[in-house]
């Protein structure tokens, strides 16, 4: 497995663990406090902002650890090196991920237009963001395995 593939797998795992972990922490462990507030926009604002902050900090910390481990294992290789093939794969997987996020964003407007409670919108938005994050890395792995055609 190449360094870029290892990075994609690592990103995939951290996205699932950190985002999934925070969602479980809020709605599972602290469900008694959170669930009665799901109709409040203020709750969702706080939840989204804290989740973004927490996941960014944890991801930075995890990436530092990952870089240390990878540097010790691949002493001769430049971890940040990306050639044209890597850039093409990154652009294509990011494009696919953006499509998923846009679909998620538009879908989140549907329950609001139908007069459903506000948490439908935020849950759809959250799911869209979560799936798009995962899809990006999954597509990277797929492109590295199957190749790309221009």
């Amino acid at each position, binding site marked *: 497995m*190449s360094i870029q593939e290892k990075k994609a797998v690592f990103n995939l795992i951290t996205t699932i663990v950190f985002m999934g972990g925070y969602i479980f922490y809020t709605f599972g462990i602290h469900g008694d406090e959170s669930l009665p507030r799901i109709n409040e926009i203020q709750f969702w604002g706080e939840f989204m902002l804290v989740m973004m902050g927490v996941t960014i900090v944890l991801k930075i910390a995890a990436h530092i650890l990952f870089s240390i481990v990878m540097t010790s294992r691949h002493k001769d290789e430049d971890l940040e090196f990306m*050639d*044209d093939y*890597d850039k093409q794969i990154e652009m294509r997987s990011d494009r696919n991920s953006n499509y998923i996020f846009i679909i998620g964003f538009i879908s989140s407007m549907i329950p609001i237009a139908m007069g459903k409670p506000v948490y439908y919108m935020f849950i759809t938005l959250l799911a869209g963001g979560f799936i798009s994050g995962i899809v990006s890395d999954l597509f990277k792995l797929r492109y590295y395995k*199957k*190749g*790309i*055609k221009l």
Partner: protein
Amino acid sequence: MSKDHIQNNIRTLRFFKDEMTQQALADEVGVTRQTIVAIEKMKYPPTLEIAFRIANVFGVPITEVFSYDAEADNFKKRTNKRC
């Protein structure tokens, strides 16, 4: 687009260059070994610049490294609507 309209002889050329490794070729060309693997397996058509660099490493014209089969290339020709 057809699957194999661009072929290459990189594996053969590496063999005749003292069984040059993929890593050695990748280093000479300035890409990763993964990219050389993808090019050899025809999973990725390289850019013109990389193609020229590969030909340069083997000291042969680019047509000896890559070949193009126009009949196998089922690309859609553009039609000019203004005419």
